[in-house]
């Protein structure tokens, strides 16, 4: 055992040992600086490709459904149209004046006189879950007039026929000396645009 491990080896064995050592060193270097980073990079790219494929599939699925979405959108626009047509929009920032422009022909047609309008507090509608971006509210306008009970009822019948989304919120008909000049007080409500919950 004198001279150590290598010294005791035959020259061929020594050569073999060094060649083995050299190859092993090269192999380790290749693994550490070549294979391992390449495998990591491959794993990353495979993952990225998977994500992109999922995204691509989702996009393709969305695009395949584009026609359905468009059709649904058209249907929904059709459904909301009657409500949008019935919305009370302010006239020069006054809801009462807009109501006047809508209701005067009906009220006068029914025979009511001394008609006046004023704004009443709005009432919030129950919320959907989740909330829509654009909320709607119940706009209220007070109408006071003089006329007979029949004229008041005639006005309500015309209103319900011509403006089916306008509702009677409160009413007071008080008898006066002349039956044709009863005091009529009504609070009428419309759907109107309310608050915007988010941009």
């Amino acid at each position, binding site marked *: *055992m004198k001279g150590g491990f290598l010294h*005791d080896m*035959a020259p*061929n*064995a020594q050569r073999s040992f060094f*060649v*083995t050592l050299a*190859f*092993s060193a*090269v*192999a380790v270097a290749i693994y550490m600086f*070549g*294979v391992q980073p*390449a495998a990591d990079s*491959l794993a990353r*790219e*495979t993952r*990225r*490709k998977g994500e*992109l494929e999922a*995204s*691509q599939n989702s*996009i393709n699925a*969305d*695009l395949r*459904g584009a026609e359905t*979405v468009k059709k*649904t*959108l058209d249907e*929904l*626009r059709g459904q*909301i149209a009657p*409500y949008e047509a019935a919305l009370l929009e302010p006239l020069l920032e006054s809801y009462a004046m807009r109501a006047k422009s809508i209701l005067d022909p009906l009220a006068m047609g029914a025979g009511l006189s001394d008609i006046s309008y004023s704004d009443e507090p709005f*009432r*919030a*509608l*129950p*919320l*959907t879950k989740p*909330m*829509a971006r*654009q*909320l*709607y509210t*119940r706009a209220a306008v007070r109408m006071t007039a003089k006329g007979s*009970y*029949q004229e008041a009822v005639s006005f*309500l*019948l015309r209103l319900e026929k011509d403006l*089916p989304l*306008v*509702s009677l*919120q*409160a*009413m*007071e*008909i*008080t*008898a006066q000396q002349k039956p044709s000049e009863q005091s009529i007080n009504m609070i009428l409500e419309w*759907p109107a645009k309310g608050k915007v919950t988010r941009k």
Partner: protein
Amino acid sequence: MNGESFHLNLMKSGEVRSSSPVRLRVMMPLLAMLATIGLVVWWGSSLAQSIIISAQIKTIEADIDAKRKDHSEVMEQQGLVRELRLQIEQLEYYGNGVRAVGEPLAKLAEVTPVRIQMTELSISPLPPQNLTPPGKKGPPLWGPTTNVETQKLVIAGRATRETPVQAMMESLDADEFAGLVTKARKVNSFRQDSSQSKDGRRLLAFEVEYTMPERRFSK
């Protein structure tokens, strides 16, 4: 010597490393070389795969980029669909709460006996909406906590006797008035009035309060 084997051991003790020292001497570098070649192949294969996948990624990205505009339009439309559905739902809450009382009020005039002189007909105003959050903390609520509203219809008038009033109340129990009143009613007052009828009879004043059908602002 006959029949007996003779074994001569010429190996040095340091050379005894395995049962087959010659094969080990050849196999070890060979295995190391094969391992190195294997790793080179692995490396090469990984690089090749990486190149292929990179090319595929570029293709997919190009495809996604090409569809991005159409897709964003579709996404916008999908968002609009969701928004419109919610808006319609809330407007339907309103639509379901709409009350039509014209017809029953017209019929009320028909069923009211002539001997009744109506002095007041009113649908009670609604109390102010409470949009204060529980505990009075934070900003006002976006919407009410209840979706039902109940109001009263008050009919007040004068009559010479109780029978016309009774007849009117019985008439109001009919189904045709279901949109105006429920069967829940309360006679608030029935008393002698200070005024007199044209024929000089003392009149009776009455006030009947009906609970109106609920207005339900829901689906």
